[in-house]
């Protein structure tokens, strides 16, 4: 009975979480509008720059590629953060009614994953209108990986800092640093930058657009995701342990 119950709980939970997401008009509008705005915005902004010798493609394309990755990544990041923050109290009640913490984590995760796939698809579609993508399947995988990575980070930040102001501050700082360092605007030779969540997906994505499969980047991306997943699960399940989230 418990096993069937578990599947039921997760399915119903994900259904509820998705409904909640879709019924927030801002989120839906952002899902459709953000990729276009960001891709074209970065593409346009980059046209002012000269082509530096270390750049692999023309500046506008570099801008657009960056825009595609950022749109894919940062939407789930914000969504993950706010999902966790806004539902903290109701989730705690739900837990008292019978969900265990791991099930709640899976529900949130599945929702973030669903949104990640959606935004990756939209971003790729928008990009493909102006840039030829040689290996679309791999490109999609790279975008989805970037999206999921930041979705997990958003959930992590939300679980650790369950207040909107602080959580947003941290997310914005993480995102913008990552954003710029992987933008291809400056040539970075330090290995430290490889620790940033977008570094490997960016490599993977760029080569997929060019038509090659950067297997090193793919491996690194996969490993990164696995580590993030484990940390997020641990933090989420542990940190919310009867510390009284219900005390306002």
């Amino acid at each position: 009975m418990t096993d069937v119950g578990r599947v039921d709980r997760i399915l119903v939970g994900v259904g509820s979480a998705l409904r909640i997401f879709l019924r927030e008009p801002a989120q839906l509008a952002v899902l459709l509008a953000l990729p276009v705005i960001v891709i074209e915005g970065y593409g346009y902004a980059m046209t002012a720059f000269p082509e530096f010798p270390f750049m692999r493609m023309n500046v506008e394309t570099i801008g657009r590629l960056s825009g595609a990755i950022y749109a894919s990544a940062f939407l789930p990041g914000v969504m993950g953060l706010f999902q966790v923050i806004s539902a903290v109290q109701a989730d705690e009640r739900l837990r008292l009614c019978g969900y265990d913490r791991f099930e709640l984590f899976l529900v949130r995760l599945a929702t973030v994953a669903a949104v990640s796939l959606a935004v990756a698809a939209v971003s790729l579609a928008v990009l493909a209108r102006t840039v030829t993508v040689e290996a679309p399947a791999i490109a999609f995988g790279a975008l989805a990986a970037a999206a999921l990575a930041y979705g997990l980070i958003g959930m992590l930040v939300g679980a650790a800092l369950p207040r909107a102001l602080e959580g947003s501050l941290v997310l914005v700082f993480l995102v913008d640093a990552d954003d710029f360092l992987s933008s291809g605007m400056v040539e970075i030779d330090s290995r430290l930058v490889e620790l940033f969540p977008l570094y490997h997906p960016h490599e993977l994505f760029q080569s997929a657009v060019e038509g090659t499969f950067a297997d090193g980047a793919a491996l690194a991306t996969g490993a990164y995701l696995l580590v993030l997943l484990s940390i997020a699960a641990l933090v989420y399940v542990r940190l919310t342990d009867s510390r009284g989230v219900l005390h306002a």
Partner: protein
Amino acid sequence: MQNIRYMPNKKNVRRVGDADLDGDVVLRADGIGKTYDSVVPFVGRTVEVLDGASVAIEAGEIVGIVGENGAGKSTLMQILVGALGADSGEVAVDGTIGWCPQDPLLYDRLTVTETFRLFGTAYGMDEEAVTAARDRYAELLGFEEFLDYRIDRLSGGNRQKINLAVGLMHDPDLLLLDEPYTGFDWETYLSFWGLTEQLTEQGTAIAIISHFVSERDRFDRILELTDGTLTDVTDRDPDAAAGRGSGNAGDATTASTEVGAGD
């Protein structure tokens, strides 16, 4: 009478010191202590909310919990429910629990029906049972016409009805209700007391945090939370406690117990 026990995941409702509690005792709490520390040392206040609070609740009884604002009633209830950890003491529960928190902790963008489905699934109820419970409480508390409304589109009183129903729907052995009738109209208020009578006849134990203990005869016992502990004040005359009439000079423990005077 068939008593289907839901919440299969909540075997861990049995906490420290549990076994089957003797006799009809459904909940026993011993020496509960809780202190809220300020985050930064040496700065800010440390508040000792609970200090050796103890209570035992038996099947079929209705217990009222009263006290001044800020006395710690909601904190105590959260500890009994398991939403908050106590610093000291033990809570043992023999059976399933239903909790109605003071604030409606619901998901704003779900409809009433979807809310029941979600919480029903949490309890381990199948679809039929969920629908039956939903319809039963919709009729009893009067929210039948709102089943397809989103929670954030309901008035405060209606939201509270859902809040209450969600805590009851799985027929728990013990009900912990924190100011459950806030915002209720008179009819619903009466329906509520009709419901509690039914439930206690079935053997459900109920504890209610309330300000309106002018309805004292509805309760089997009344406990007052002062200075971190619970005292049985069932037999105390409220007028005497307020200092009117003959008065009991020995009631040094009571602060202003204006129980009938509302906030």
